[in-house]
């Protein structure tokens, strides 16, 4: 279980271009951070850097557990979920097959996947092939793994963009529950999150305390 994430003096470079430098950010248990900024400012890159998929140019990202700092690799493999632009669902498989795989891969069980299906209202989609689903339906299937295998840190990239109003509200409730149980959320968004959150604009002032 993660307690705090500390991002210190982080600087990211893509190709020849420096996205930002000197980013300091601390997220504690029960806190949500909404990353805003123009297109291409580096919101997605920051999420990928926290997930360890992208090597920072400078600075570091540390994960603290109850008993002090955790090894980054272990923390990432066990305590974070990332749902990005691409939902990672195979178009030829059924929604249930893919959800079950994603759940088991991230450490959940079939029962927890069933539970997530009920809470996200996915029953009617389960037998359909993923390619028959709309963008919003696919996103809901991808978001289901957040509930199916509980992990402390959610890294979300435009999580609500394809969702309709009703499901945005529903997902807002789920995010609030996650925070209430000590979870953390770092989300790249254009519209404000429907939960109390700290706003961080990427590419502007970079000194934010936790």
């Amino acid at each position, binding site marked *: 279980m993660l307690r705090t994430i500390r991002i210190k003096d982080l600087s990211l470079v893509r190709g020849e271009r420096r996205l930002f430098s000197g980013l300091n950010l601390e997220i504690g248990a029960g806190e949500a951070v909404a990353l805003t900024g123009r297109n291409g400012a580096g919101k997605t890159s920051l999420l*990928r850097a926290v*997930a*360890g*998929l*992208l*090597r920072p140019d400078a600075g570091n990202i540390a994960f603290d557990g109850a008993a002090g700092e955790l090894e980054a690799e272990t923390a*990432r*493999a*066990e305590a*974070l979920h*990332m749902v*990005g*632009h*691409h*939902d*990672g*669902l*195979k*178009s*030829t*498989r059924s929604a249930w*097959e893919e959800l079950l*795989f*994603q759940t*088991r*891969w*991230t*450490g959940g069980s079939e029962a927890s996947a069933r539970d997530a299906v009920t809470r996200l209202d996915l029953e009617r989609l389960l037998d359909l092939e993923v390619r028959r689903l709309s963008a919003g339906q696919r996103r809901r299937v991808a978001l289901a793994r957040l509930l199916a295998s509980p992990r402390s840190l959610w890294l979300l990239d435009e999580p609500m963009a394809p969702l309709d109003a009703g499901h945005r509200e529903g997902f807002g409730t789920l995010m609030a529950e996650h925070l209430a149980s000590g979870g953390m959320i770092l989300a790249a968004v254009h519209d404000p999150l429907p939960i109390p959150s700290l706003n961080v604009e990427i590419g502007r002032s970079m000194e934010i305390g936790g």
Partner: protein
Amino acid sequence: MSAFLVLLRRELALAWGKGGGPLLALAFYACVVTLLPLAAGRAPERLASLAPGIAWLALALAALLSLERLFERDFEDGALDLLALGPAPLEAVAVAKCLAHWLAAGAPLALAAPIAALALGASTAIIPLLIACALAGGLAFSFLGGLGASLALGSKRGGLLVAVIVLPLYVPPVIFGAGALDALAGGLPWTGGLLLLLAYSAAAVALGPIAMAAACRNALD
């Protein structure tokens, strides 16, 4: 270990599932084996002498074609992010993918190889050795092909690039396997070729995943 099995099951389902999988590889294999005699002439004695070599070479090509997109699909739809963040290291992910490819395409092809060789007029004496070579060589083909597929991640001309990277690496197993088959057909000692083939496959299985994981990390970065 359980995460590895979960992934292996999913990779097998993807390989066997819609889109042909082993059937397509087998059909391609049958086409190549039928085409080569048409090009090489139909004199039975000449075909019989070429048979083991043709059956063996076509295996390498069929394996190559079926794994060109081994990592590309996961890279495009974002599943590779999920796999990279999972409980198993990327090296284990690479092993699962290549192993699933071998089980779904390599092993069925290894069983089809003797049929092709017999149809071309090879003697029945080489059949056990051909199956052994095809099973061991197929493992090398899968793991080296996976290496090519991972190195070509994100490039536009992926398919050709994979072939250009992988075919030179297929040279040693093709030589060892064909050498062993040739030696057996000519009544010479053949164990040396088979042992070298096994050694090469073992090295590919041991070292390939390390390189594949590095290539995937590089592509995701």
